[in-house]
């Protein structure tokens, strides 16, 4: 067990964690931030993507203890003052989600893409999202939503 201090969605969090606690487990089971989803056990699906110090990260690939001192943003922290982020708005407007399970990771990943590439092409969007699996949408409306968000951010 060790103590970690993190800033999560703007709030300071101090918790005792085991050395082997994954960030995804920490968020879900210790902080009840269940918006971060776990869809696989091989770090392939991307449902657990969060931002750590501003960059997207599959939270099942990091130990909570290893990111001590970091700033973490989860899907719950993306909206500001109750107003959804332009990426969230675009997913809603263009039907970029169906069952919603992959959605938090998909949105967090897409937001990071636009941080790094303000006007991505369709190919660049599809390439970037290669690490996020969606079984419902066929990706087309997700790509459209990312492009829409790019005009609003």
């Amino acid at each position: 067990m060790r103590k970690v201090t993190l800033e999560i969605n703007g709030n300071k969090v101090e918790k005792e964690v085991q050395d082997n606690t994954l960030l995804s487990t920490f968020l879900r089971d210790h902080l009840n931030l269940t918006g971060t989803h776990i869809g696989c056990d091989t770090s392939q699906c991307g449902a657990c993507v969060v931002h750590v110090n501003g960059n997207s990260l599959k939270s099942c690939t990091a130990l909570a203890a290893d990111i001590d001192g970091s700033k973490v943003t989860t899907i719950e922290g993306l909206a500001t003052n109750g107003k959804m982020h332009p990426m969230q708005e675009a997913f809603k407007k263009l039907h970029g989600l169906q069952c919603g399970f992959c959605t938090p990771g998909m949105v967090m990943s897409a937001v990071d893409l636009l941080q790094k590439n303000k006007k991505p092409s369709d190919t660049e969007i599809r390439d970037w999202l290669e690490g996020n699996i969606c079984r419902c949408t066929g990706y087309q409306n997700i790509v459209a939503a990312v492009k829409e968000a790019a005009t609003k951010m």
Partner: protein
Amino acid sequence: MASLVGSRVERKEDKRFLTGKGRYTSDINLVNQTYAIFVRSPHARAQIKKLDISKAQKSSGVVSILTGSEIAEDKIGGLIAGWAIRSEDGTEMKCPANPPLAKDIVNFVGDPVAVVIAESLEEAKVAAEKVSVDYKVLKAVTSTADAMDGDTIHEGIDKNLCFDWLLGDRQKVKEAFEKADKVISIDIINNRLIPNAMEPRACLADYNSASEEITLYTTSQNPHLSRLIMSAFGNVSPEHKLRVVAPDVGGGFGSKINVYNEDIVCSWAAKKINRAIKWVAERSESFLTDIHGRDHVTHAELAVTNDGKFLGFKNETIANLGAYARVFGTVTPTYLFGPCATGVYEIPAAYSNVKAVFTNTAPVDAYRGAGRPEATYTIERLVEKASMELGIDKTELRMKNFPTAFPFKQTLVHTVDSGDYVAGMEKAKQMADYNGYEARRKDSESRGKLRGIGVSSYFEACGIAPSAAVMSLGCGVGLWESAEVRFNPTGQVTVYTGSHSHGQSHQTTFAQIAADELGVPIENIDIVHGDTDKGTFGMGTYGSRSLTVGGIAIVNACKKIVEKGKRVTAKMLEASPEDVEFKDGEFIVAKSNKKKTIGEIAFACYLPGVRDEMKSPLPEGEEPGLKETAFFDPSNFSFPAGTHIAEVEIDPETGEVKLEKYTACDDFGRIINPMIVEGQVHGGLAQGIGQALYENAEYDETGQLMTGSYMDYTMPRADNFPEFNIGYTCTHATTNPLGVKGCGEAGAIAAPPTVMNAVIDALGGQEITMPATAEKVWKACKNLKKSNSKAA
């Protein structure tokens, strides 16, 4: 008031999913809950010689370990097949018992033998490792094609044959083939798939010792049906003492229809230990134990005349059921498959013969499309081959055999009420620029690439319901759907539906329908589903039935509300009920300016006399309140149809197939929300294209799943697809008042033959099996080169 039906209404469900406020089963935790880990067979077929839990029981944190012996002692029932199928010789199908925990014998890798329940997940995992099982490994049967020649898996089921089923007339087919100029024949493997809903299965069972009620939260497409099965067949609890809640469910695609071992075991065990038990599948467990789909081996023949008229069709199919027959396991390769075998064509003689076999693999059941993709793949590959052999354009050959009038009485079972297949074909060709293909092919050729174009026309029978029909075919229950429409006194509406949304957007589509029927703003309408304590018993969601069956039940319940509203209005305004009209949320007395809003009527029904001028509260004999229930059982299936066209480009140096263009033109009847239908089409296409190009579940000869993770099973990703070009034609269904047809499965049905026809076209007609991986295609390219150089 503008109609919402037909509008792109944004989804009511989205905000919670987009802000992390969805509530999936694995998100729910109960105070003092325990954690379950299932001990599973590592062998595909083995006898359990000894199961020793003594060491595991001493492991830290263990609360209880239960095995097949306790299941048997408590007479907990097994998992069931929902449909009884009769063989051609009149005998009943043969199905093995499928206990929730195996006691004597295991039949696939992943078959559970014990459950370890502990205070924490980690402790449960550690203890599960200490359960010692002594297996006597037996020779496994894994091949679909050879299953009938393998060792007998289940005692008393000779040749591992569940049934040998026939639909159609062998003699008529024989005669038709004798008259043929040409017989086109094909051998097909419809590859095994794993549904892979992104939310792994999970359950959380709780027990209240005072009320003696079990509450099961589970990832189900049909909570009411699950409760019925667990109660009536599982003997877990009387139905009124079992509440099943399927909260937000992260995709189903058929894989969450079944009641699974874990649902039964956790519910039963929660009562035994008097504590809540949580189980969440790891993805590797989902791969092993979720139902799989498809897995057919087929030989099919089409009898044709030289000028391209179809005379007869037959298929001989072996369908793999896996280790056990589950809820839709036996109907998927029979009544969901055979009746669609002749596709969209007039073929005067046909039969479909299916031998369903048991193997030592995960159970195979309904996966998006269920039977109809397999049927469509067979006929559409065959027709494409016929077009090559006859030298007739693939679209012309199809149109030549389309029905000329509707209703279209097919040779085997269905009477298709409405459609216009020629219009669909013509629109698809125009959308795809079919006539400009040759230029694109030459362009590919100039770059050293092979280009192919593939077409398929499909219809499907969905909106799975007509109880009279399905029960006569062997279904254990009628497949109607229920709805309850309940007004609050202050005018908002709650609609309870027996169907279940796990991505399908019922909260929006159903609210659009109710808003139009009742003239109530959509924001004042809530849709409730997924909890057996809320709303009437219903059959759930599968077979593209939610709108065509469940949606119509809502319409009918709304109509009853309006009828009552007319009677109450008449009383209030001293008119005759026949003179009251209802429009846009208002009850208006004909030829007068007297009217009441539906909100005022709701208030009056609950609180008569409080706010209005009524002296006597309600009409004589009228009950207070404003709430109506309807059950809808349609007279027929619904029959969406369409034509899809794909173009691929192959790099002969690498064998890589690039899907360049995909055009879908579908007829779904009236469309309630075009945005949502578009999403359903895209998703279905992705799964269908996935089957054609990427996905394949493979067992080795010992029964080990070789594709048991996302590292091994190729899930389609965003960069695997082009932008789909989708469009519609529209003929209304005549069997429901909205004129709607199902849309959820079409893409998965039409896409595999469309894409494979394009790949095989590019390969000069060489047959290859799905998925068209780079390796297979590269080999075929080499053959093509060889044969081309020989020809030169």
